[in-house]
């Protein structure tokens, strides 16, 4: 029993340590997100060949990334200062911010569920996802340098 308690508390500690710096964590997730979308966009544009299996794998990776995006853990109060481009509107309108993130997750899930069979289908999905990126970056991000 004692071992179990120790194990659980260690796990909990490891969990909190993973989120020790929410700014770095959310930046890492956004970087990964951008990289995956970038790869998909290249296929959608015709720069890279379309391979249905590879595309689906990428979309699934995008979904896994989006599901890891826990807004409460990544954007705690006070994480608006320092080396971040997170805009003040995130904390002024947390519900709106979460709604945009939820729409993004829903669009990614929809793309996975309707795995694209050709470039045209992928293009439409990347378009919808890209527009979600823009919606969030329009209001909730402030470039400072």
């Amino acid at each position, binding site marked *: 029993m004692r071992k179990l308690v120790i194990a659980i508390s260690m796990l909990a500690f490891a969990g909190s340590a993973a989120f020790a710096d929410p700014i770095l964590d959310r930046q890492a997730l956004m970087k990964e997100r*951008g*990289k995956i*979308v*970038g790869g998909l*966009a290249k296929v959608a*544009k015709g720069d890279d060949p379309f391979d249905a299996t590879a595309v689906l794998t990428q979309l699934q990776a995008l979904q896994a990334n989006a599901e890891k995006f826990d807004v409460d853990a990544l954007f705690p109060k006070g994480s608006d*200062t*320092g*080396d971040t481009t997170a*805009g*003040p509107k995130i904390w002024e309108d947390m519900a709106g911010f979460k709604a945009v993130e939820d729409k993004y997750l829903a669009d990614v899930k929809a793309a996975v569920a309707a795995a694209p069979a050709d470039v045209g289908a992928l293009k439409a999905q990347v378009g919808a996802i*890209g*527009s979600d*990126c*823009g*919606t969030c*970056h*329009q209001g909730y*991000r*402030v*470039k*400072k*340098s």
Partner: protein
Amino acid sequence: MAWLKKLVGVALVLGGVGAAAGWLLSAPVRLDTTVLAQLGPGDAAKGKRIFYAGGCTSCHAKPGSQGDARLQLVGGLELKTPFGTFVPPNISQDPKDGIGAWSVEDLANAMLKGVSPSGQHFYPAFPYASYARMKPSDIADLYAFLKTLPAVAGKAPDNSLVFPFNIRRGIGMWKLLYLSDQPVIPLPAGTPDPVMAGRYLVEGPGHCGECHTPRDFAGGTKKGEWLAGAVAAEGSGVVPNITSGGGGFGNWSQADIANYLETGFTPEFDSVGGAMVDVQRNMAELTPDDRAAIAAYLKAVPPHPNGYPTRKPAS
């Protein structure tokens, strides 16, 4: 004491002359007939391109509008700047609240001279300092396109500006300093056509310099730091340097720029953000040739280091 009286008299006369000169110099100036003669009949299909190049909907649609709502030009966005809050008006076809009763000459005077039909100065938050470089025939095309858009009733609230910016007549002086129909960047004869076309789109209808160029104390763009990036007029952010100078986007290829304007993705697959989101939506409506021209011009403008101060290290 006769000398004192004389001195006072001279001072009064000089002051009066100065005031009269200021009054005359600051008077709104309309277009002359030779320019108006170039307007032509106007073509709505061509005007659609100008409408998107000019970004009209970004400021004049209701904030947050999507899809067809972006064509309802009812106004009402609030631009909160150090000068006060500017509110773009209703420019829908409503004859009372919008500009449905305007003639094509009225639109040309507004866009090329910053003068309203009743003869008042518009504030240069309406970017006529850029639009002044547009061809009159493009204004006529835009007019024809605007006529195809819906009339939407409803007046937007007035601007609320701080003194002395709330004195409209003062804009006349500002215009003497900053209003010109001449290109910003001189291009030598033999410059490739796309660069020339891009210059027109960027410096004229696209009015990119209004946000991407730093401003001097009087609110005019610093032509010597053209497109070098600037502290944003609204909020706490910055607008990026879009020259190839240090801090700029010299590592973007021409194709990268055109692709960004079309899709909203940077070469690193970051996405477009801030006020540029609406701009990019407009740019996506242009032809590939137009976007390529804009990119060609941006690669050709003189490089400058960032036109805004480096961020202070986090405390």
